[in-house]
């Protein structure tokens, strides 16, 4: 029996029991459409995280104290914080030894309660220099930035994150007001623009001069050069010189820390690319997880196909006997039943791609609990899902088809 005849025979058999075929198909439709929709959501999340990190600027390099072994403490800010000093940071701004470095913005941190009148809020504080805002791609909404004079003078001035400002002052103008942070008085000189939706959201923080943070908030001692910093933000001259800048930083810091050839770095240099890769890796796992869950429903759909095909073989035993008696070979019967299974899963696959695609299309931008869901539809996922659904039909169709083909024609003809 040739392929065209085989297909028309299989189609007419499927058409003979439309409700059953429809329900069987539905299993595959649900499986395939959930694969498509889940993958679209997963990829969407991945792309959106990547783009948020890129918003910070891909030329940003972060240097932290600590060794490679502590790398995974990165998000926790671990490491030996005594290793990097303000002098180290200043040394990175050197046109001879570090020609690829454009901007250096050291920071250290503190935390405490900010109080204005009867309002108070917990803040995460950052001790900064004037370069911090540019390095972090932040802008001032009103008032002014922390100046280098503020740093020199260890001034008690503060720039508020938008959320902090909102909590303490509501709609009032905070500029010029005096607030208390951990019992010390600060004059508000500026408020930052809100960065809602970015990955490192500074809205709940406050910025003060790095010197003030060290001597006043953290009760540090020593000369200004020896102020310890928790990290140094470095901008490369351009995106393409990030790797060169990284080498520059490493060279300068190793010299300054008098590290021998065999000594490990006592600092960690992280580029935005590293961060993106780490996060993409995490997100990749998430996508695989979503895909697997959806894949399981496809598998269940496949089992449904097998179940129906087995019932169908039993019901059509006599038909099989008739076909065999008039000259059908075993393989003609085998191919007919496999073709039926594959046609059903292929049809279900196509419908599933359409449904999944529609869900992903209309789901893009939908908001769930205030989070915007982004979806990214990838054509190759649709083709893979379709190929998998055909494979499911083959896999789950073969066993019933083999059963059908191995029936003895005499017994099959006698079957009532």
């Amino acid at each position, binding site marked *: 029996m040739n392929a065209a005849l085989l297909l028309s025979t299989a189609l007419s058999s499927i058409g*003979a029991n439309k409700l059953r075929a429809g329900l069987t198909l539905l299993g595959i439709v649900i499986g395939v459409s959930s694969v498509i929709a889940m993958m679209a959501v997963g990829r969407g999340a991945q792309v959106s995280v990547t783009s948020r990190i890129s918003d910070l600027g891909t030329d940003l390099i972060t240097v932290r104290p600590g060794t490679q072994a502590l790398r995974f403490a990165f998000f926790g800010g671990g490491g030996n914080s005594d290793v990097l000093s303000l002098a180290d940071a200043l040394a990175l701004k050197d046109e001879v030894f570090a020609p690829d470095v454009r901007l250096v913005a050291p920071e250290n941190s503190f935390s405490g309660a900010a109080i204005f009148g009867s309002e108070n809020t917990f803040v995460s504080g950052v001790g900064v220099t004037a370069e911090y805002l540019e390095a972090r791609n932040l802008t001032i909404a009103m008032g002014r930035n922390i100046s280098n004079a503020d740093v020199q003078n260890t001034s008690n001035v503060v720039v508020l994150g938008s959320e902090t400002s909102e909590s303490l002052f509501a709609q009032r103008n905070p500029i010029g007001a005096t607030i208390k942070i951990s019992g010390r008085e600060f004059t508000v000189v500026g408020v930052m623009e809100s960065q809602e939706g970015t990955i490192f959201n500074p809205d709940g923080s406050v910025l003060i001069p790095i010197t003030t943070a060290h001597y006043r908030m953290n009760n540090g001692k020593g000369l200004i050069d020896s102020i310890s910093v928790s990290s140094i933000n470095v901008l490369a001259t351009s995106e393409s010189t990030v790797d060169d800048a990284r080498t520059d930083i490493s060279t300068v810091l190793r010299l300054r820390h008098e590290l021998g050839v065999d000594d490990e770095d006592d600092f960690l240099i992280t580029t935005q690319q590293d961060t993106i890769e780490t996060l993409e890796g995490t997100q990749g796992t998430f996508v695989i997880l979503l895909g697997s869950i959806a894949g399981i429903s496809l598998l269940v759909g496949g089992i449904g196909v097998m179940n129906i095909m087995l019932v169908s073989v039993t019901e059509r035993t006599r*038909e099989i006997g*008739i076909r065999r008696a*008039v000259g059908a070979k075993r393989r003609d019967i085998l191919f007919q039943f496999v073709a039926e299974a594959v046609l059903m899963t292929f049809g279900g696959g196509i419908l599933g791609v359409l449904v999944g695609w529609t869900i992903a299309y209309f789901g893009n931008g939908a908001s769930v609990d205030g989070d915007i869901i982004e979806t990214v539809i990838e054509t190759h996922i649709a083709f893979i899902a379709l190929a998998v659904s055909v494979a499911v039909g083959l896999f789950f169709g073969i066993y019933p088809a083999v059963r059908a083909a191995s029936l003895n024609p005499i017994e099959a*003809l006698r079957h009532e």
Partner: protein
Amino acid sequence: MTTNSLNSVPVIELTEVTREFQIGTHVVRALDGINMTIEQGEMVAIIGPSGSGKSTLMNTLGCLDQPSSGSFVLNGQDVSRLSDNQLAETRSHQLGFVFQSYNLLPRETALSNVELPLKYSGGYSGKDRRAAARKALDRVGLSERYDHRPMQMSGGEQQRVGIARALVKNPELILADEPTGNLDTKSSGEVIQMLRSLNEVDGKTIVVVTHDPEVAEAMKRVIAFRDGRIVEDRLMTNSESPITKLNVDSSASDEASE
């Protein structure tokens, strides 16, 4: 053994054919050393009580089953040791089978049912298939029923569709297993007439398994089975004449070639 060697090769030649079935621990011998020759153009009834082995014989002749031992030569080809695929080929090309319960595909039209054997033999376009199926339906007098489904036809008509299906590839041999078993007297008569006409007009070799004495009487030769053996093999000079009894071992007949 054959006195009528004027003919070419016999259509059917069975030599010491046995067929055994294992049922539980004991072996049942359904066919017990059958020797039988059927020449081209014969019209033979095979009769016998149930359990006599005639159905097993029919399955063997129809290439649905194979002998446990002995040889079965069909149109000069030994088919007793063929593979499953070769048997399917043989069924497709060498014979047509008519069943007691018609065995039509219920969802298909008469035309489509008659086309079925052509679908499995290859080499026919859709147009060729339909033309051949129409011709076969015309031959059995169902020109008005091409597009009817089995449920829309009488038993006699359904059986004639079954005969058309057996005819469609124009085989030498037509096997009919109780073709009138499910029919009333009138329809039975029509089916018998149809089979006779295929024998006399178209020269087909016809073998019919039957319980029905009337059907047997309408044939030109009657072979009786009991307990897996041939107990009687007789010729009719014509269907109205007294029955001529023959020796069991003399399986050939001169009349068959008349």
